[in-house]
C-alpha cells in the first residue's frame, strides 16, 4: 500500500478548512490523478501526503508508517522515500542543472557526499541519463536561471526521477508546459512509475490529460472528495458538476486550433512565448468564461 487516509481533515491556522472527511487509499504501484477547481484543496492534499503538513484530524498512513508518530530519524528516512514534484520547481536560480538534479538524492547521501558533490559532481552519468529522458541532456552544466519556465519544470520532474522514490507525488507537474510537452512529460511520469513499480498520485488542472494517462480519477471539490472512480466510469455529467463553479466548459490542455479560434491576439501570444505557457493560460481563462 502506498498510502491510506481515513477521515482526514486539515484546518489552516487562520481557521480555513482546506480539507475534510478525506478517505483515499492508493495501492503499491497504483496510479491516480486528483482533479478539481482551483481552491479545491489539491495542493493541501499533496502536502499532507508528502509529510510536509500535519493533518488536523483523521488517520494517515504513508508507505506503511504513521509519519507523525515516528521519531525524527525514521521520519527523515520515510521522507526520503517520497518524491514531490512541485508546481513551481523549488530550485535556486543560481544552481547548475546537474546540482539541482543530484539534490534529489540528498535524503540518501551522507553529509560528506553531499558536500563533496558540490566540489565535483559525484554522478554525472546518472544525472545525464535522467535528463536525456526530457531532451535536456545538453543543458546539464547550465545554470537554472538560463532555462525557460517549462524547462525548469522538467528539471523539477527529473530531480524526483533521480531520487527514485517509492511514492511519487506531483502537484500540477506540467502546468508550465505546452500541450505536446505536457503530454510527453506525463508519459514519462507514467513510464517511470511502471518501470520501478512506484506509486504515482498527481494533481492536474487539465481534465483531458488526467483522463488520458490515469486509470483512476479522484474529484476534489471544496476540500471534500466528490468522486473516486476508475477512469472509464467518470462521466461527463460528473465532470461538469465538479467544475460547476468555473463555468460550463471543462479546463483542458489548450491546443493550437483552439488558440486560433479565439482570435489573433491569442495566436500571437502563443507564437511569442517559448513554451506557450502564457497562451495556454489565456485560452484556458477564455474558455472558462464561456466566451
Amino acid at each position, binding site marked *: 500500500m502506498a498510502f491510506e487516509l481515513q477521515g482526514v481533515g486539515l484546518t489552516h491556522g487562520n481557521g480555513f478548512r482546506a480539507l475534510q472527511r478525506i478517505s483515499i487509499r492508493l495501492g503499491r504501484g497504483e496510479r491516480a490523478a486528483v482533479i478539481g477547481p482551483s481552491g479545491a484543496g489539491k495542493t493541501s492534499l499533496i502536502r499532507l501526503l*508528502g*509529510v*510536509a*503538513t*500535519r493533518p488536523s484530524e483523521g488517520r494517515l498512513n504513508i508507505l506503511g508508517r504513521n509519519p*507523525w508518530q*515516528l*521519531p*525524527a530519524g525514521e*521520519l*527523515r*528516512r*520515510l*521522507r*526520503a*522515500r*517520497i*518524491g*514531490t514534484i*512541485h508546481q*513551481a520547481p*523549488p*530550485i*535556486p*536560480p*543560481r*544552481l547548475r542543472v546537474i*546540482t539541482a538534479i543530484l*539534490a*534529489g538524492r*540528498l*535524503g*540518501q*547521501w551522507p*553529509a560528506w557526499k*553531499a*558536500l563533496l558533490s*558540490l566540489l565535483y559532481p559525484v554522478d554525472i552519468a546518472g544525472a545525464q541519463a535522467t535528463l536525456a529522458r526530457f531532451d535536456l541532456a545538453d543543458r546539464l552544466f547550465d545554470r537554472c536561471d538560463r532555462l525557460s519556465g517549462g524547462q525548469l519544470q522538467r528539471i523539477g520532474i527529473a530531480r524526483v526521477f533521480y*531520487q527514485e522514490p517509492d511514492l511519487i507525488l506531483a502537484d500540477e507537474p506540467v502546468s508550465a508546459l505546452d500541450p505536446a510537452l505536457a503530454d510527453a512529460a506525463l508519459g514519462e511520469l507514467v513510464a517511470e512509475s511502471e518501470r520501478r513499480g512506484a506509486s504515482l498520485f498527481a494533481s492536474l488542472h487539465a481534465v483531458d490529460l488526467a483522463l488520458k494517462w490515469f486509470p483512476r480519477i479522484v474529484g476534489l471539490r471544496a476540500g471534500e472528495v466528490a468522486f473516486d472512480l476508475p477512469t472509464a466510469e467518470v462521466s461527463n455529467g460528473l465532470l461538469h458538476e465538479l467544475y460547476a463553479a468555473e463555468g460550463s466548459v471543462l479546463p483542458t490542455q489548450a491546443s493550437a486550433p483552439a488558440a486560433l479560434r479565439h482570435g489573433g491576439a491569442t495566436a500571437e501570444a502563443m507564437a511569442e512565448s517559448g513554451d506557450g505557457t502564457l497562451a495556454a493560460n489565456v485560452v484556458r481563462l477564455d474558455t472558462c468564461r464561456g466566451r
Partner: protein
Amino acid sequence: MNTDTDARPYAARDPDTRARLGWTLLALVLLWPLLLLAEFRPWALFEANNLQVMGAFLAGFLPPATSTEFLGLLLKATLETLAIATAGIALALLIAIPLAILCTRALAVSLIGPGPGRLGGSALRAAGRALLTFLRAIPEIVWALMLVRVFGLGPAAGVLALAVTYGGMLGKVYTEIFESTDTRPTRSLLAAGAGRFAALTYGLLPNAAQELTSYTVYRWECAVRASVIMGFVGAGGLGQLMDQSMKMLNGGEAATILLVFLLLVVLADALSATLRRALA
C-alpha cells in the same frame, strides 16, 4: 478616473490608510522627546565662535605628515590593523556560522509539520539567540579593556575582543538573512529527507551567498575602524599610532592616518563589489 469611482457603489479605498497614518503619527510623537533627550541642536554647529574653534582644530591637520620615518611607522601600523581586523573576523566566523545554522528557523526540520523535536528545537534556538545577544551586547572596547589585562598591550586583546562581539553580530544577521531569502528550496529538500548541511548548501546558500558576502565584507570594514578605537586602549595598530599623534598634538600625522582609513574603506568597497560580481 473620478467618474469611474463614483460609478461603483463600493469605491475602492485602501483599507491600510488609517493604520499607516497612525503609525506615522506615533513615530513622530516618540521621536520628539528622544531628540530633546539627545540634546539635538544642529544649529549650534553654525554659530560663529564654534565655527572658529572647529576651523582652528581642522587647520592643525594640514599639511599631512609625509616624513619617511613616519610613513614607515604608518605602514607597519596599517598592516597590523589589517591583521587584527582580518584575524578578528576569521575567528568571529568560527563563532557565527555554527550558531547561525543552529538558530535559523529556515533550517529547522522540526518546524515542518510541525514534527518531532519541535520543543527541543525551539529551546535550542532560543538558547543560541541568547548567546548571540550576550556576545554582541557588550561593546568590543569593554572586551578589549578586559583582555588587555590578560594578554598585555598588543594586538592579541584586540583580535579576541573583535572575534567575540563580531561573532555575535554576524551570527544574528546570518540567522536573519537565512530566514529572509526564499526558503522554499530548503523546505522542499528537508521535506525530502535531506540533512541540515545539505539543505543549507544546496537550498539556502545559492540564494543567500551574495548578501552574506556583502554583509561580511562590510563587517570587516567596521572591524578595521573598531580596531582603531581599541588601539586607543593599547591594542596596537593604527589606533595606537593615532593616539600618540593626538597626544603630541601632531595634526599632520593624524591627517595622514585618516587618509589611510579612507583608502581602506575604498578597498573594502572594491573587494565587496568584486566578490558580489563573482557570486552573481
